[in-house]
């Protein structure tokens, strides 16, 4: 039988100082940087025009293209090569251009085409994709993304509160906030543009990170019943150790699929996959090193209905219900 991390007995909780220091080291500089210079938002959120074109050989230089657009009255368009020197991405995202698109999202794209046609001729290039977003749609999406994040957070909170005791729920939510902050910091470090797709990745990270924490806490709940005399500290360590093979295996298969997405998934998928990759690493880390110490701390801080006291009641209930519990899978 091949096994990873079998029968470990690592005192994970003891390492909380180191893990906290690590978390702060990752999160704080990123947060400060975000507060200072903000994020880079995609045109979906700001409005604007994004055009991807491929020149036939010989491809003009970026400077020529810039000059052509400037001559067409579009000096503010950002131009980058993409992959090969023949492929260009043009992005018009400044407030003036966006305001122009209030009249119609296609206006700027047509202006770009006209400017390029005038200089290079319509046959010199092929438009691979165009995206024009009017300012109204942009602000709408911004609002929707925020609402989605907030609701995702609230519903999972409510679900956890219903499934677990509130201390567990609070610890899981705090751990998830940790993951979100760490992922945001990562996005800032990697200069990943915030698009709708990346917000989707962020929501998936929330779900995944909660999963991990829930699996550990599920085991904590079970062990609290099983070993009524053991303290929470040892129970937590025991539960983390028992679930660590699953944590590592799920993490690694998900990472394997994400790696294949990063390698082969192409430019649209890649930022999304990077955010998820990091989110899953940090989610796995936090379910071991953040959620459990937090639970211990919360339990220490509000000990009145602590596990030690509550356990006696639950144990009494559990013994009464043992028969039923064994025949019906635990709720």
């Amino acid at each position, binding site marked *: 039988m*091949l096994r990873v991390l079998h029968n470990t007995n690592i005192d994970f909780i003891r390492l909380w100082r180191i893990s906290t220091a690590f978390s702060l080291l990752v999160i704080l500089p990123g947060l400060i940087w975000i507060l200072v210079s903000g994020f880079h938002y995609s045109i979906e959120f700001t409005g604007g025009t994004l055009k991807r074109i491929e020149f036939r050989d010989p491809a003009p230089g970026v400077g020529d293209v810039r000059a052509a657009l400037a001559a067409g009255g579009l000096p503010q368009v950002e131009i980058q090569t993409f992959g090969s020197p023949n492929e260009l991405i043009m992005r018009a995202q400044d407030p003036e251009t966006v305001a122009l698109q209030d009249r*119609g999202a296609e206006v700027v794209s047509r202006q770009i085409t006209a*400017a390029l046609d005038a200089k290079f001729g319509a046959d010199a290039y092929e438009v691979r994709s165009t995206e*024009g977003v009017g300012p109204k749609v942009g602000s709408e999406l911004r609002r929707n993304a925020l609402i989605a994040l907030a609701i995702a957070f609230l519903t999972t909170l409510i679900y956890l509160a219903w499934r677990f005791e509130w201390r567990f729920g609070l610890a899981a939510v705090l751990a998830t906030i940790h993951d979100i902050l760490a992922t945001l910091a990562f996005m800032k470090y990697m200069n990943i543009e915030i698009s709708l797709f990346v917000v989707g990745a962020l929501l998936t990270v929330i*779900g995944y990170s909660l*999963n991990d924490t829930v699996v550990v806490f599920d085991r904590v709940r079970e062990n609290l019943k099983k070993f009524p005399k053991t303290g929470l500290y040892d129970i937590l360590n025991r539960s983390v150790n028992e679930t660590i093979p699953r944590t590592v295996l*799920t993490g690694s298969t998900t990472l*394997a*699929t994400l790696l294949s997405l990063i390698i082969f998934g192409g430019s649209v998928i890649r930022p999304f996959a990077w955010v998820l990759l990091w989110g899953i690493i940090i989610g796995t880390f936090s379910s071991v090193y953040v959620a459990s110490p937090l639970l211990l701390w919360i339990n220490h801080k509000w000990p009145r209905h602590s596990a030690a006291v509550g356990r006696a009641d639950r144990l009494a209930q559990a013994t009464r219900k043992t028969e039923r519990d064994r025949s019906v*899978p635990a709720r």
Partner: protein
Amino acid sequence: MKLKHRIAIILALVAGSLWTLYPRTVVERVKRDGVFHYDTVQRVPLKRGLDLVGGIHMALEIDESKVVVPDKAAALTNALTVLRNRVDEFGVAEPVVQQVGNERIIVELPGIDDPVRAQDIVQKSAFLEFQITDETDALTKALPRLDGIIKSRGLGLAPGARADTATSSPAAGLGSLLQRDTSDTARVAADTGARDTAAATTGGPGALSRLLQAGTIPGEFMVAAENVGAIEHYLSLPEIQAALPPGKVVRWSSDSTVIANSVYRPLYVLDARPIITGQYIQDAQPNQDPLEGTLVTFELNNEGGRQFRRETGRHIQDYMAIVLDQRVMGRPPVIQGAIGTRGQITMGGQDLAAAQDLALVLRAGALPVPLKIVESGTIGASLGQDAVEQGVRAGILGLALVILIMVVYYKLSGVFAVGGLVVYALITLAVLAQFGAVLTLPGLAGFVLSIGMALDANFLIFERTREEMDAGKTSRAAIDEGFEHAWSAIIDTHVTTALTAAILYQFGTGPVQGFAVALLAGIAASLVSAIFVVRTFFLIWLHRTGGTKPVSI
């Protein structure tokens, strides 16, 4: 449940999924070279999104900067019907025209790569009116008054007029023309402004009448090309609009004419009441005539024909302007006698494609309200092809890695898990096909990602089973315990993921929704596969071995 029944259910699931995914023969109505073809194609019934096949998508809203719409909901419903007709006439396979929310219509045209043409088709109002040109010299009589208004209120062109004229110009939508238009107008503005001052001091002819020359038919005026902007500006002023002769409207011609080496744009004064509108059009076809060039012939229905005959009979020897979207098409012809159900619209110098598109929008009906594109995108077919290849390659690599991990790590149980994964993939795709979900690139990503997550349930079960075996339980007992104890964690993880996916679906748009749907289908399939299918594999194994051997896990 008996083992036999379990196996039967799994076989039924697999067979049902395969049946759902089996390539079907469908007939597609596609337009090629202006003619509809009915193509029979074999296809897996999984709809692919625009990002995979290439095409154009647009989101449209009522343009309230142009009109005040009292009942937006009704107007949008009407617009939706008209757009459906037009897109249907456009002839693309599997188009999407649907309303989202309260005020937006989305249009998706797979396989189309000419955004300008597509945007024109959905945006053109196609409001056709037949109006008699003014016989009473109403504008000429009103001109001194209009000149007076301009003079007394100091409405001569000021530098600030630039923006006004640019927006009122119908060419404003065309970015390329916009630039030129604006500069032209500015030049005219500076020009006329200077002359205005001169006129005011020297007491010359009025600002407006100076720019107009009477044409050769009643109600026609010729405007030199360089003065078009100035006239447009004057006519857009509220003071002037209020003072225009009542019961008349002023409309530009769609083309310019050349008289004695200078370019003129005709301006027509028309009776405001149309003798008939385009709502009675029953058919319209593009045509080419050696003398008149490109034209569109149309046919009215019986009711329209009666009205047309009656009205034209009343206006014999008058001139009738054919006005499309407030532009007079061609030169108004004189009415020789009562006209019945047939007529034609000359298109001037425009090409046959333009005539085809005009015939199309006339057949499909006029848009009740002007629409504005609030979001639009074009994806080239080559890009879509790349995306499919990338998605498939990523999927295969991901799958291979996952299978490797499972089989190396869990041996026979790993093989069971992989078997469960196959069922999982089949069910997921079948569910997507069944609900008509659209497979997008993010959807593919969601599918690949959920493969990794689908195995989570297996890990929970297998690891638990190992623990139970370490505790000295028999294979059968250990497997039972493994499934039983992992259940609560499996449910929790699936529910939390399903919740986020549902929220993504609710608040996301197109691509993100594709991702959410794939994730949701994956979660459901993963539950079935891990809890039911993989367990059945174990039961078969236990049945075969009698449960005496330690399970290979």
